């Protein structure tokens, strides 16, 4: 058993931390949010220079050959700065589909562009009725000569407004909630059949509602008759990255709170001297460390080959991360008092991101139910 990072991993962590310390102060973040795309192209090209955009791809394809632990480390740093750039959409989700579902040709065409920061991807999966069920898909894909034509409506496509290409789940056969008959398609965002309406999400990120009307698919990812296992796998890998992001954000929310407790004076002494608050902050630390442990478990399980074991592991991760994020987020506001209720103070922004992080690809409640339905984690003696 070894939780230590390699020298390379430590370097990676440090270089991202250094970049973000330099480029992602609270005021800088505010300015990025105000930019038309809602994030910074300049920071994006620095991500490219650092190798963060090619991180998970094989070296001979133009990537850096990073694994799940590397992804986790980067995600955690990005969570610490609650960055707004489409890294998760492009590199983790998009990258996941390319690594696990694309032909070698497609990869060789796309990976170098992604790594250079020239190609942005977004995942168009959820629909009005689907909530957190990845298999609930009404959007259709019809054979159209040698290709496919996509029709339907996708909601809350994170970073869908700035993406160059969309990865779309669509039904090639079966009924709306059938597990089989789902394909994954790559669609040019500028296809005349694609209409996007971008908006801001409550945590300051961007998303889009996307309508496909006979949009032409440029490529198929995985098996068009049964793409759900691919989707599950990529979402599971994404959950591991989300765990990293949440831990990074929780760490900062916690640190800010403890620092504030040491400086804020009421009744002639620091509020950190009140035992009620000390205990609460200690409980926040417990929640944070439990979450951190789970983020390691997530990185370890992301490469698990048995899909059921992997799903189960990620459900477990989601529950703990979600519960911890809720407690740390809520209490970081509470222990600050009024100041953390303001837009001008960073803490609230961490709380908001943690709230959305929990809901991405299913909240803690969703996964508790899943785990309970399959009999939990521990077998009866």
């Amino acid at each position, binding site marked *: 058993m070894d939780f230590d990072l390699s020298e390379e991993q430590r370097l990676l962590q440090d270089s991202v931390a250094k970049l973000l310390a330099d480029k992602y102060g609270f005021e800088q973040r505010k300015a990025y949010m105000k930019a038309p795309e809602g994030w910074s192209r300049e920071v994006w090209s620095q991500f490219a220079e650092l190798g963060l955009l090619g991180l998970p791809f094989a070296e001979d394809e133009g990537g850096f050959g990073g694994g799940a632990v590397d992804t986790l480390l980067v995600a955690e740093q990005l969570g610490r700065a609650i960055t707004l750039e489409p890294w998760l959409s492009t590199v983790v989700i998009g990258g996941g589909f390319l690594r696990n579902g694309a032909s070698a040709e497609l990869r060789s065409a796309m990976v170098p562009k992604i790594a250079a920061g020239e190609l942005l991807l977004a995942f168009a999966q959820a629909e009005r009725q689907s*909530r957190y069920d990845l298999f609930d898909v009404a959007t259709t894909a019809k054979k159209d000569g040698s290709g496919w034509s996509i029709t339907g409506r996708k909601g809350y496509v994170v970073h869908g407004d700035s993406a160059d290409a969309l990865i779309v789940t669509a039904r090639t056969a079966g009924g709306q909630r059938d597990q089989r008959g789902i394909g994954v398609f790559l669609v040019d965002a500028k296809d005349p059949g694609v209409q996007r309406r971008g908006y801001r999400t*409550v*945590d300051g990120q961007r998303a889009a509602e996307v309508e496909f009307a006979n949009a032409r698919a440029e490529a198929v990812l995985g098996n068009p008759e049964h793409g759900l296992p691919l989707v599950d796998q990529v979402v599971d890998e994404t959950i591991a990255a989300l765990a990293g992001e949440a831990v990074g954000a929780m760490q900062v929310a916690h640190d800010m709170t403890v620092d504030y407790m040491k400086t804020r004076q009421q009744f002639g002494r620091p509020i950190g001297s009140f035992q009620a608050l000390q205990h609460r902050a200690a409980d926040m630390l417990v929640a944070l460390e439990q979450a951190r442990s789970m983020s390691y478990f997530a990185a370890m399980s992301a490469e698990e080959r048995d899909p059921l074991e992997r799903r189960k592991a990620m459900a477990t991760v989601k529950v703990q991360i979600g519960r911890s994020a809720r407690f740390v987020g809520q209490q970081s506001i*509470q222990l600050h008092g*009024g100041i953390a209720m303001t*837009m001008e103070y960073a803490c609230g922004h961490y709380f908001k991101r943690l*709230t959305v992080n929990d809901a991405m690809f299913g909240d803690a*409640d969703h996964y508790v139910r899943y785990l309970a339905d399959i009999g939990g984690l521990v077998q009866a003696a």
Partner: protein
Amino acid sequence: MDLRFTDAEIAFRQEVRDFIAKELPVATRERMLAGKSPTKQMVVDWQRKLNARGWAAPEWPKEAGGPGWTLAQRYIFREELQQAPAPSPLGFNINMCGPVIIEFGTEEQKKRFLPRMLNLDDWWCQGFSEPGAGSDLAGLKTRAVREGDHYVVNGQKTWTTLAQHADWIFLLVRTDPNAKKQEGISFLLCDMKTPGITVRPIITIEGGHEVNEVFFDDVKVPVENLVGQENRGWDCAKFLLGNERFGQARVGASRERIRRLKVIAQESLDGGRPLMEDPEFRRKVTEIEVELKALEMTVMRVIATETKRKDKKPDPATSVLKIKGTEIQQLCSELLMKAAGPYAWVDGDPDEEGGGNDVDVAPDWALGLAGVYFNWRKQSIYGGSNEIQRNIMAKAFLGL
């Protein structure tokens, strides 16, 4: 002991309900159903309707312009407003400053201010908290120095809710810097149009503008606007804070939120079925309903003992109401957000008509629910934080 309502009380409830059904503007109700605060105009119009009916200040005695209701009637009335949902009478006027003037004010002050408070001719705001004086309110530093027939006020208030709408502000100021901290404070009434006052907005985390900083730079307040005695303002403050805590129970409001939650849970799908059909979700909602029922009974007990109390000291039992009431409201706001699922992510500007759904990216019922959840974290912070309420209880009930 008989906890049932009498026939007369049941008839009264119907009378209130009929009045609301007939008089409450649809736009006001819809806005509140969506979880948003009513606009200034909505609050003013509604309060004037209530006032025309003699119902603007349910708790005030008849001679002050109140309806002279029994405790049960007051309770029923507020519950019906909250459940409608309709705006409550403006708290700053009716539950905070008004009662202080009734209790501690002069006859002139009563004549001058109370009728205008009732009719919302003057919108009041609460100038208590300061950057350095939150939980430790008595640590406030805003200075008032008497010069002839005026006090000259210098300093800063913060978190002043809806100061941007306000015509008047009631203030706690330090008049004797040498006395023990609770003993050098006075309660002043100040016209917001007085030269030297600057109001600066504070934007809260969900994007709304409901709080402000208020700066005082040589602001002259006539001495006749002092309420009670100089340096005895802390008595007024304690009296007022007890009322504020009481008002935080908001049983009717939580019941309304649960109703709304159940409507949304019919529309929102989970696992291909209405969320309401999920036993896990139903169990969660039911747990809250039980807590709310218990709170309702506790509120009634506190009301009942209130009548028998001789002194005007705030009842520490109101701390129980504040803690439980805000916890329940916060849970409701969280469940509403969760019920909407990812739709709740759309950043709807709470101050904008239509709440930012101009691009139609979510069902209307889902908009702004995350914003309300974020915003309602304030409830366990203001009105004396929930930690401070526990301190009060530990001291008053437990003798610790």
